[in-house]
């Protein structure tokens, strides 16, 4: 961190600290990582909150991803402080695009720095179950109708299994899954249904976070 030019004012840092689950140092690291994504776009100076978006294509094809193909698997992970090692090597994560989309304000996958911080804050270990549930619901709700309906579930399943299941099987799984989790018998999962189901899945919390 070169301290010659200030990236954030103290006030800004404090605000970030209060609004996310990160400490000052981690915010600064996050910023430098964010900047690495598109050095020509993102300025070092963030004191006046510039409105800059890094497009989805850049976020998922970061320089880090190239290291990924190399022999060592550990290096593509950034070490943010000791607490937080954020890994954006999601090349393999089928939900990668969807996560970025969910957190981008414009819904297109273009992330401002705020969105970027938001994303990691929600996915970090300390964020509470409730927050995670809400964001998970958003991620799985592809058509943004505030319900997880059959089409959403189908998409999820196809991403999960990478098209290994036959369409009939997918349809069957969708039917059964919705039937199981649906409490008020409207054939789609509202947030309440989703929350109820998640509360019974003890592994959700440990699974729904980017390891820190």
């Amino acid at each position: 961190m070169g301290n010659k030019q200030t990236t954030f004012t103290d006030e800004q840092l404090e605000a970030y600290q209060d609004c996310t689950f990160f400490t000052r140092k981690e915010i600064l690291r996050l910023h430098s990582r964010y900047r690495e994504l598109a050095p020509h776009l993102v300025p070092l100076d963030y004191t006046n909150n510039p409105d800059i978006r890094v497009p989805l294509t850049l976020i998922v094809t970061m320089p880090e991803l190239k290291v990924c193909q190399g022999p060592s698997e550990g290096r593509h992970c950034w070490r943010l402080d000791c607490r937080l090692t954020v890994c954006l090597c999601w090349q393999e994560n089928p939900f990668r695009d969807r996560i970025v989309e969910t957190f981008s304000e414009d819904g297109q996958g273009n992330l401002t720095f705020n969105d970027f911080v938001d994303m990691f804050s929600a996915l970090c270990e300390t964020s509470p179950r409730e927050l995670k549930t809400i964001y998970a619901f958003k991620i799985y709700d592809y058509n943004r109708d505030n319900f997880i309906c059959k089409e959403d579930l189908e998409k999820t399943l196809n991403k999960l299994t990478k098209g290994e299941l036959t369409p009939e099987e997918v349809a069957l799984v969708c039917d059964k899954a919705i039937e199981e989790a649906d409490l008020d018998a409207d054939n789609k999962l509202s947030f309440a249904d989703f929350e109820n189901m998640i509360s019974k899945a003890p592994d959700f919390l440990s699974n729904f976070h980017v390891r820190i």
Partner: protein
Amino acid sequence: MARNVSFDLNNPLLEAGLESPADEEGVHDSFNQLIAEQSQNGELPEALELQQLQREFDEEARDNVPYLPSPGHEHGGLRQRQGEMESEENRQTDPLVCEVWSSATLKILSSMPSRTIGRSRGAIISQYYNRTMELRRRRQSRPSIRDFSPSARPSIRGYGMDADATDAEGSGVSKRERLVNNLQNLSVSDRVRMLQGMPLSVAEKRELRRLALQKEKHTLSGSQIPCCSQLKYYLIIALRQSWYSWLSFLHSLQLWQVLLKRASGRFGSGVLSYFLFLKTLLFFNIFLFLVTGSFLVLPQAVHPPVLPAERPSFTGLELLSGAGYFSDTVMYYGYYSNHTLRRSCRDDPGSQNPSVSNSTSTDCVSKHLSYNMPLAYFFTIGAAFFITCIILVYSMSKSFGQSFRIDKSHSILAMKAFCSWDFKVIKKSSVKLMSENICTQLKELLAEVNQKHVKNTVCQTLWGLTVHGLAWTICIASTTSCVVGIYFFSEYMQQNLKETVRSPTHNPLLKEASLLALPVLVSLINLLLPGLFNLAAWMEDYDSPSVRTYVSICRNLMLKVSVLGVLCYHWLDRVADNPNTIGVTCWESFVGQELYRFLLMDFIFTLLDTLFGEFLWRLFSEKVLKRRRKPVFDIARNVLDLIYGQTLAWLGVLFTPILPGVQILKLLLLFYIKMGSVMMNCQAPRKPYRVSQMTTIFITLLCFPSFIGASVCVTYTMWSMKPSSSCGPFRGLKTMMQAGKLWVQELEKDNPRLSLLARAHAYLVENPFFLFVGAGVFLIIIYFHSQVVDGQRKIISLLQEQIENEGEDKKFLITRLQSIHERKRTPARRLTSQDSAC
């Protein structure tokens, strides 16, 4: 559903704004506690319902505006509709069949609160507004509800009415202002927690925070704060800063972040749980070591007793056997003195003489600097075990609560679909493996759902039973034979020792090496028998992987428990009874050495297992068999090995106070070795692995047979074994317990007013009756607790039923609403069709 529901009655227009045509209040009306306050005259219920009904109609009339040509028709329409409603009630048609809603209904539906949670900005703001309100009310001395403007009242259902941000922008703004107001009135930590938990974007949160702070500053500067409160303000800021830096420092202390991350990225949560378990054990041992180190080892090391002149020289074998050079050091029980350590008497040579029990005979006056070693020994061990027990039980219950949620078999498919993806995994092949995994699991579940009742034939069942019986017979027989073997071998080794004692010409090195025979045998058994068990399990061919894991855990546990049982018998009965025959003056030290040897041998054999079972096997299968498959990391077995080692450490801490330190070293080395081996040699497990349940089981195993067994042994030793008469802090006493008793008696002698304490000690500590009563009370509490949980389970199933009914009701109401709209629109269309063609 069970909560009382509140509703703001008199401000719907104000709140929602007239421009919102589809106001969801029309759909989810509820009652208000405000009414209870305002109309305290008896006519409440009817009036309320009337008001309610009236408003509903108003709403609908408002809804209807686009369809009605002029507002003048409203009242007529109202009356007409009232009639319609009644007539419809009589007809009772079931309109559930029709599923195509009109746009107005859809609009209403989309703004229903359950569909806007966590979605629209307005909904979140009002939800959090209500929460802050509740928090404030809980913190403060509950201000009267009249203090707030009616619309500021919290609806107890977590989300407010003006949910749709696009529809009710104006009200959203006012809500936001009120939220800011509330935030500002919260304490700093509460505010931060609220802000962090809000599912809003960071920009939004920052804005909220800025507003809250701004107002705060404004009020502060406006009221001309005096100097001292300004000081307070700065002090608070400084404190907060230091708190943050402290937090970040704490986080930076977390061990092995990067390594753990890497392992989880490659292997998922299953393998990670092994390493996390190892970390937990490490912390247990660090705690134990700190306690024994600071209260036993350090004071004794500062005041070393006079040692016998000729000490065996260091040969190197001691590192393995723990005997010889090490035997008269601070490592073992025998070294500790039984007198009171006094600092002020250091220049007095008489009081330093350890061989006589001189705790009372010195002429040292200053008693306040004394350190009563036997007492310290007794209470340190007791307290360490007690605290460990509490921590263990606490973590066990917590993990139980997390992993065994109520009714588990429900909605498995949905859970598989939504919760099974491990977002941590990043390695390409692991990701592929995981998606294959999920795929096969889904297929299996589907098959299960489709054909639940595929009955095996009688022949197949019989065959299966025979195979299971055979496998269990093999396992039990091998375990029994091993245990019997250990029993006789230990006896033989003891005879051997006796003979070597009788013939002193024997090589001392050889004697020491022969001590290693028993640990080697036991570790060998621990290494080889699980392989046999695996073979048996392979023969049995279990369908479900979890049953397979449970069976394997069961068999391994059986082996380890019985081996440890025999060993405990060997130590506490044979060795302790007549230590002199095997040339040992201090049986406690001997047992401590034995435990040290066992611990070390266990470590060495684990290393060998890692080398041969993982590294060489991988080389073999890659180079010779030309298979691309790597060995799979056997989590259950490895965790059981860890538990076994930990049991040894707990058993030995009484005899070898420094043993936790050895265990710490062992665990540290093991972590790096296992991590390296896993990264290099293993592949991600192919079988699905229920992490949180397994973690719970492991912690339970650590608590129940391991810790409880060890503490029973230690308690038995302290309670009823006679400590050796020539060494150790308890020499000359009948049992270790007597140290406490003597101390209490001395206290009583010094100060007769403390006789109550002495009597309490006699009754509470020495009398086993109270122990039984304590255990009984504990069991009763557990029983009651389980009963409460059972009751809650029943209530939950009832509530679920209720929710289903509510859902049905909702559906019914929606269809009714729709049909009313339809009917209303038909006459309206008829009217409008004359004016315009649309």
